[in-house]
């Protein structure tokens, strides 16, 4: 049963229920038999994103795990138009595809070419590092696409090297004593571009993710969605723990779920209560489950918790400056 957009939004105060989601999300577009690792966060992210977007979606993926896990030639797991691209080229290639669909809609009107959503699905390296120029350009042009960063917080495809999205204190194969710098705040950078829609997601909250993709699809212009997608081998946890780890990231307040629409930030349900520090689980409970933080120093741990608390304070201040903030 396919729920139309309008009916869907009236449901349950903007929050879809699991039963309804299961009813309307039977179709799979990222098929089994792909070569994702057991417990891969990326797989869950793409699967649920595509459930929301549906088959009229053309996807570009720059160099990342996704290039590989979709299947070696000639095997193919995506059941929708999908193209691989150079590392720095994701956002621009999707811009070109989106432009081509508009040109084809002009030449062949009424054939559905203008109904296709162009989407980039990139890792954190392809987004925050090598791809940021192209992404920033696409955002500034308000290129009609959804740009998705699935964030596993390092270059996992090449063997767990640090990216600018790797958190402070984390071991990677190029930060063997733990990363010195803090994680780059990409969603904030994207929000600063004043694009119509920015959202953060976690694979532990698939319904929230589903809703955000539905919303992004309904908006014209450049949309940015950043998904925390834990990596079992890269972070060092069991392949049956992916969801739990992602949920702990949310519950500790380490990964904050929110939307920014036309400059207005709204905390999503799973993060809303965490403005109250007492509602946040101590960060150590999230970090201690991952081998990458196994030898984190006490100093780094304190710094991380302070950084987290400071981030929340900043969000509180930001929210209080917004017109829609309940006074």
């Amino acid at each position, binding site marked *: 049963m396919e729920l139309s957009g309008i009916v869907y939004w009236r449901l349950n105060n903007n929050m879809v229920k699991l039963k309804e989601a299961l009813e309307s999300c039977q179709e799979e577009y990222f098929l089994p038999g792909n070569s994702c690792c057991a417990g891969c966060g990326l797989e869950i992210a793409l699967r649920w994103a595509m459930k929301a977007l549906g088959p009229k979606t053309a996807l570009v993926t720059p160099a990342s795990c996704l290039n590989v896990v979709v299947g070696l030639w000639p095997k193919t797991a995506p059941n929708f138009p999908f193209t691989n691209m150079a590392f720095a080229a994701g956002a621009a290639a999707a811009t070109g595809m989106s432009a081509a669909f508009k040109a084809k809609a002009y030449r062949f009107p009424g054939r559905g070419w203008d109904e296709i959503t162009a989407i980039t699905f990139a890792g954190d390296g392809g987004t925050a590092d090598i791809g940021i120029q192209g992404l*920033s350009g696409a955002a500034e042009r308000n290129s009609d696409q959804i740009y998705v960063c699935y964030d596993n917080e390092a270059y996992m495809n090449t063997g767990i090297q640090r990216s600018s999205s790797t958190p402070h204190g984390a071991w990677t194969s190029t930060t063997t004593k733990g990363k010195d710098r803090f994680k780059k705040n990409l969603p904030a950078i994207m929000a600063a571009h004043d694009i119509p829609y920015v959202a953060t997601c976690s694979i532990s909250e698939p319904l929230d993710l589903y809703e955000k993709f539905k919303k992004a699809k309904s908006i014209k212009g450049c949309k940015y969605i950043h998904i925390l997608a834990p990596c079992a081998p890269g972070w060092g946890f069991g392949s049956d723990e992916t969801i739990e780890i992602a949920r702990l990231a949310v519950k500790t307040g380490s990964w904050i779920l929110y939307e920014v629409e036309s400059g207005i930030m709204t905390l999503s349900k799973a993060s809303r209560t965490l403005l109250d520090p007492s509602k946040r689980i101590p960060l150590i409970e999230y970090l201690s489950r991952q081998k990458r933080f196994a030898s984190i120093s006490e100093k780094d741990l304190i710094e991380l918790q302070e950084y987290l608390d400071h981030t929340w304070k900043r969000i509180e201040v930001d929210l209080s400056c917004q017109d829609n903030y309940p006074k």
Partner: protein
Amino acid sequence: MVETPKDFIQKEENVIIKGNVAAAYAAKSARVQVISAYPITPQTTVVEKLSEFADNGEMPGTQYIKVESEHSVLASIIGASKAGTRTFTATSGQGLFYMHEMLHWAAGARLPIVMAIASRGPAPPWNIWADFTDVLSQRDTGWMSAFCSSHQEIYDEILMSYKVCEDHNILLPKFVAYGGFILSHTSKPVIIEDQDKVDNFLPPLLDEEGWPHIWMDPKRPMMFGNLIMPSGFYQEFRLKIHDAHIRAKEKIIKAAQEFKQLFGRGYGNGLIQEYKMDDAEVGMIIYGDLALQMEDAVDYVREEGYKVGMVKLRHFRPFPTEDIIGVAKKVKLLGVVDRATAFGSQTGGPVSCEVKAALHGTKDTANILPIINGLGGREVTLEQQKNQLRKLVKFNETGEVPKDTIHGTLWDCLLEVK
């Protein structure tokens, strides 16, 4: 399939325009559907003129993406071409170098993209003037490459190029190069053809399915460009690119013939254009704008009683090996003039290397004298070209290697260092 729409309006007219503007007119006449561009001197006026066309509604339906870098130019063009549209862009020197990675992506995906290049010298030191090192150093990317000698030829060659690139038996991208400033920024009369006539030669893409081998279509979900193991067809795909280059030669010849029939303008056989070679004793192989002036030089030196001729090389990739062998059998000595460098090579510039390689193993062909001149836009005068021909004649008669020959190459008109 749909009928050719009558939305692009262009009557035949003779206009005095810059070479860059001729390139922009060609893109309009070709009804390109997606343009992506980033400014770089001396290409800039191509994209400015196209912007004007688009803003004035002269290219209905055409999407113009103004990106933030050349890397994104080609990435977006690749995205648009994969989705089955006719695409165009233009760049120069450093911009082309910045695109290098994406050049391989375009050729590997067999996308019929046409790109105008207002060639300029590579930095450092900074240089923005005519030098074909930019386009020639992209030799192994899988792109075809053509050189233009006149403003009209820029317009004509872009139209012919789409015809060849989009041939379903070819499907390769192509550069159409011309000297920065010398052609890009000077004005000459150019005939812009009637739109119906151009549509007849190069019909707009009328099949919404796009290319036969690649598409982005929800009705036919497919994945493109994924990882292929060493035991897979990688090597065979590469061979197919090479094979398409070789087969493209006959398509280039055919397109040039058709073009001449329809529009009355011919460029040799499309691959090369000979000038007074039939009774020549020595000849010069040359490309780009300098070839036009060399025709005058040939006439003058012939008046002096020497049987000289020249060959304009119109295509570097695919390389017209058979034609070059044919030319090299007519004369005893061939000069090969490069306005480009191939550092460390034993055989002069990039084109003279190619000519020597083409002749290897064939008996009774001309000796080659590689010549390098005009780098970084340095002026090459008519007098200088006449002297080059005279040096060839003397070298041929006496066997005396011309002065200024360094490591087997004549570096013509070097400045004197005191």
